[in-house]
């Protein structure tokens, strides 16, 4: 059975002080710190790419885990802001950067904040279907490259990061169930217009608070579980206020759903694996992940410890 063996992340050292940024936009520091919940925002430098971030994440993975590079037979990258406009697909660039063998499947996935939950299921299923044993699933979506510097709603929120998840036949966690949803009619809530990200904060907020709890409850029902059967809820770290209220509406015990975006901001598809990396060694028995955003797209999955 295939599943998650290890996770590592890269958060750029280059940081924006979000409170100073708040001053520039005329926003209250307390509002930015306590409601948005973001004090610092990591940023890839101008000359740093998706491939760079992913390679750095891989270096961290290789430091703490025995990764046999010659055995990697699948590599997937999830991003909506790929290097070179996505041509070639960034997984091919990474294939070269990491020096992987030719007998290795590589492809990209273009999803935003639901990308980690989707991507895990895609790579696991693809590998399972094709008899592959060792895969790398990368997330890196530097929204900083498409932010409008005059738009405080997005500039105060998004941070850059990269992660890599090692998928193997020696998993610590395996997928028990998942649910996927899309509302294309609501796609204007988050889209790229004239090269810049635009966001209808209210539409995103309503979506997160109304639809995400429903999907989580539906997934729990599918598995005949209650919120108390879940040891750890890893929800996409959109903003503190949105998360607090989504957690409340889903009836999730607050102490089982970490909110940690103060030093990263909203890192899109990297937010869930950044949380997971820190908790894998604690070995929570049952984990529920939920990612939601651009699309509108939302996905939730339950992973259980593999004994």
């Amino acid at each position: 059975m295939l599943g998650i063996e290890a996770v590592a992340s890269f958060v750029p050292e280059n940081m924006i002080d979000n409170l100073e940024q708040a001053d520039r936009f005329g926003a209250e520091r307390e509002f930015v710190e306590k409601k948005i919940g973001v004090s610092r925002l990591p940023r890839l430098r101008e000359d740093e790419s998706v491939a760079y971030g992913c390679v750095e994440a891989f270096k961290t993975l290789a430091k703490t885990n025995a990764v046999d590079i010659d055995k990697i037979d699948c590599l997937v990258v999830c991003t909506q802001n790929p290097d070179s406009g996505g041509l070639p697909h960034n997984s091919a660039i990474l294939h070269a950067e990491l020096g992987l063998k030719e007998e290795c499947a590589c492809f990209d996935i273009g999803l935003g904040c639901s990308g980690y939950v989707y991507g895990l299921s895609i790579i696991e299923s693809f590998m399972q279907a094709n008899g592959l044993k060792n895969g790398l699933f990368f997330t890196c979506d530097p929204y900083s490259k498409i932010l409008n510097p005059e738009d405080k709603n997005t500039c105060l929120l998004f941070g850059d990061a990269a992660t890599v998840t090692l998928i193997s036949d020696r998993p610590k966690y395996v997928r028990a169930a998942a649910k996927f949803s899309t509302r294309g009619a609501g796609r204007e809530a988050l889209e790229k217009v004239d090269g810049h990200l635009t966001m209808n904060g209210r539409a995103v907020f309503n979506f997160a608070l109304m639809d995400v709890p429903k999907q989580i409850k539906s997934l729990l029902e599918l598995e005949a579980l209650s919120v108390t059967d879940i040891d750890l809820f890893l929800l996409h770290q959109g903003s503190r206020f949105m998360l607090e209220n989504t957690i409340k509406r889903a009836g999730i015990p607050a102490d089982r759903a970490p909110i940690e975006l103060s030093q990263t901001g909203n890192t899109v598809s990297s937010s869930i694996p950044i949380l997971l990396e820190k908790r894998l060694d604690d070995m929570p028995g049952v984990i529920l992940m939920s990612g939601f955003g651009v699309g509108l797209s939302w996905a939730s999955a339950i992973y259980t410890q593999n004994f």
Partner: protein
Amino acid sequence: MHREEAAKIVIEVLEDNVLDLEITEDMMDQTLVDIGVDSLDVMLVMMDIQEKSGVPISDDKADELNTPRKIVDFILDS
């Protein structure tokens, strides 16, 4: 819906969602910003009021409804 009922919904939602807020009659015509409801609170307040009153509030309308009394009036007129 009677005015008292609409006012009760609006006041309860505001007080439930904004820490330490207690709405008095003289605050009904003050702007939400002036009574300490920030832009994120407004999103939550509008969503809860929609759910509790059954009256949909569009984005444009939500921007116009900037005092408690305006929200009450909008519920009654809908």
